[in-house]
């Protein structure tokens, strides 16, 4: 039986050509082709002037990125209740801040936006610092951060709301806007 199995098999005419044609028709996947192109050594001719221009562009890009990062890091950050009050006493622009380096998205949800999980996305800055400025009319608002679209997180730098109606604590921001109060009054 083993001798029989060792007998050469006669392939039909053109079999080898058909197999090779099929192999050539199947292209390699795109990432594989890109990787192969990147890995293949190439001769690159660069003039001294071109090299200097490329280096200048890279240096400009690096300087611009560094400046933007420093500007973000030094931006004045106010705790919700301590935000600056615009003239006229018609409310405040409140800066909300959350440090969440591992978060992919952070949004603000509260009484001021109908507790919408997506309406007020926060901007990510250096070191996972998420910030958002929101103009608010005078009043007391409950809010929370929505991390990665699902997890409600209270603001660690703000007072907590009394009561916990839905099992997840809220924070509170109070915006003043009333007229100055005089001293006195019966106690």
């Amino acid at each position, binding site marked *: 039986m083993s001798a029989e199995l060792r007998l050469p098999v006669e392939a039909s005419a053109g079999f080898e050509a058909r197999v090779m044609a099929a192999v050539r028709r199947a292209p390699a996947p795109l990432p594989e082709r890109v990787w192969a192109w990147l890995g293949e050594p190439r001769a690159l001719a660069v003039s001294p002037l071109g090299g200097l221009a490329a280096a200048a562009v890279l240096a400009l890009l690096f300087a611009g990125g560094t400046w933007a990062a420093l500007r973000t890091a030094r931006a004045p950050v106010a705790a919700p209740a301590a935000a600056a009050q615009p003239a006229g006493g018609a409310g405040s622009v409140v800066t909300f801040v959350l440090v969440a380096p591992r978060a992919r998205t952070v949004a603000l949800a509260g009484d001021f936006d109908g*507790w919408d999980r997506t309406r007020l996305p926060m901007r990510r800055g250096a070191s996972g610092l998420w910030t958002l400025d929101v103009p608010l*009319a*005078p009043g007391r608002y409950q809010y929370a951060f929505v991390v990665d679209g699902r997890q409600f997180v209270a603001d660690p730098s703000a007072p907590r709301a009394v009561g916990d109606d839905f*099992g997840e604590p809220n924070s*509170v921001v*109070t915006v003043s806007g009333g007229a100055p109060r005089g001293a006195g009054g019966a*106690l």
Partner: protein
Amino acid sequence: MNGRIAAVAAAAVLLALPPALAAQVDRLAGRVDERTLAAVTALVDSARASGVPATPLVNKALEGASKGASGERIAAAVRALAGDLAGARVALGPGASEPELVAGAAALRAGAGPAYLARLRSTYPRESLVVPLAVTADLVARGVPADTATRTVLALMHEGVQDADLVAFRQSVERDIALGAPAGGTAAALAGAVITGEPVMPGNNIPPPRPRKP
């Protein structure tokens, strides 16, 4: 079948609402199911008779919807808030603004009595009480006993302390509590310092460490 009845009931109540109120309830469309919509709409409509604004009630329902709460839980939370807002309306009077009612409801929920709200209103009839009421609620939430918080805020206001100073006072209390000071003691001591004009330094009200026994 029950869902259809709830939808019809919600539609009927919506049609009977004044336009401004209907606009508020419309915000719930698509955020809660028909049965919850009908329950919340009925609560909002009934609260209107007591002079309770619709916006905070609808916001509470939207919060519950956003957090995935059940319809029953949403209705219970809205009902509880409507009760607090109605209490604040009675204590603060018919001229109270919506933000004052919201802050007053928070103070009531925290444990400040309606007499405190009424006293604030009678003492300061034409001034916004949003910040004093909010600071009271925040102090109690941070652990300051309700009677200490109310007395302290009243004393500060009697001295003419402004809203920004009340907020700064609350922050000082929170900071000292975080550093280990007893909640009630730090509020009273800080208020005394503010009234007498003493500088308020962080950590002034932290008790010294107990001497070790030999």
